[in-house]
């Protein structure tokens, strides 16, 4: 077990090692909405040693949790960008992927132990000092196979599958559409209230969307003083 898996957590909703939390979430025995991810991050930062590998593993796991939580927070009637993936599917996929990741992490652990056990096994890499030099004659080739190889490299790649990018945060475009819809209905809104229930990462992405709309001249923004509420209204209105 690695340092991340054993990270001791003491949250309002859960007490125990990190990997147990993941397991409970994936088994739906713990409601992810109740889990304070910021607290997990703080705990990790307190316990953190200078180990990039551990940091990387932690980021992967927390990103997975954030993704799952973010999906759960978007009401289903909203037009989500994950058209082909409802939250249940996402949870299922994430659970499956985390389980698979765990298996390969175990495989990596076995390889690491094996390497350690074999550390006193030395052999020569490459040719022997006085060995005859090998020759690798090649049969006559057709020039057409070169053209075929280059054509294949110039061919349009297959359409990328969305499955590779499901670990990303909600895209800015989601909030662009969402804010435009709200303005069509109401003409103006208070940004702080609109994003109040979202996580920090989602709020950050939402704020980027706000700046984007402002830059495009679609909206006007007002704020009475620093740290006061941000009011947004249709610039055409």
């Amino acid at each position, binding site marked *: 077990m690695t340092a991340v898996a054993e990270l001791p957590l003491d949250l309002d909703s859960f007490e125990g090692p990190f990997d*147990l939390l993941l397991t409970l979430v994936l088994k739906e025995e713990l409601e992810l909405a109740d889990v304070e991810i910021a607290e997990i991050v703080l705990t990790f930062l307190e316990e953190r040693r200078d180990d990039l590998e551990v940091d990387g593993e932690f980021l992967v796991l927390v990103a997975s949790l954030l993704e799952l939580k973010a999906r759960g927070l978007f009401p289903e009637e909203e037009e989500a960008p994950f058209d082909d993936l409802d939250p249940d599917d996402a949870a299922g996929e994430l659970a499956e*992927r985390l389980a698979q990741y765990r*298996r390969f992490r175990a495989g990596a652990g076995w*390889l690491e132990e094996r390497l350690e056990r074999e550390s006193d096994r030395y052999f020569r*890499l490459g040719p022997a000092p006085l*060995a005859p030099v090998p020759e690798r004659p090649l049969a006559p080739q057709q020039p057409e196979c070169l053209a075929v190889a280059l054509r294949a490299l110039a*061919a349009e790649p*297959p359409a990328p599958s969305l499955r590779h990018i499901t*670990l990303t945060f909600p895209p800015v475009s989601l909030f662009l559409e969402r804010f435009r819809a709200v303005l069509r209905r109401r003409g103006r809104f208070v940004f702080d209230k609109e994003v109040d229930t979202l996580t920090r990462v989602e709020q950050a992405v939402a704020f980027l969307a706000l700046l984007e709309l402002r830059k495009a001249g679609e909206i006007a923004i007002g704020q009475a003083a620093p740290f006061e509420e941000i009011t947004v209204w249709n610039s055409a209105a």
Partner: protein
Amino acid sequence: MEQRGLRVLENPVDRLARTIEALLVIAPAALSVEELAAAAEDEPERVGTALGLLASRYREGRSGIVLEQVAGGYAFRAAREAAEACARLVERPVQRGLSQAALETLAIVAYLGPVSRPEIARIRGVAADSAVAGLVERGLIAEAGREKEGGAIRYEATPLFERVFGLTGLSELPRLDDLAESDEGLRARLEEVAGRRGA
């Protein structure tokens, strides 16, 4: 005359064994029984007999050269007792400093190969480009064609991987399900924690 007499007395397997010694000492990688038989122009069964003879001669404690069965064939390596001297002589760029990311990528390629970078990235949840490039550079994995025309390049573990990890073949890798903690184990830990919290 005496020399001719000696030759007549010589066990024919001895001569084959010497030929195999010669082949193994110059080979850049492990040689299969078939490869040895083809090079020696002899029967695979007799090659097997000769290898048995050599295995008892080139073994730990008896010789500084050890015959090992690895990577689908046979190869000479240094005796383990000489490891410290060997360490002073050569670096081991292939196995030195494999990162956790590299080991995870290697495990995925070894178990699932041929497998492409996007597939590896999907399992690990992060891009695998530099880990894959590093493993190719080390010679532990190698390209194995593309998924389809114009598709992603796929990778597989090399014989060098098997040799470095001391495996006779990929089938010697343990089943992942046996390595990963089972649901039963998780259940037990869950109950343990629940018990602690209750107390």
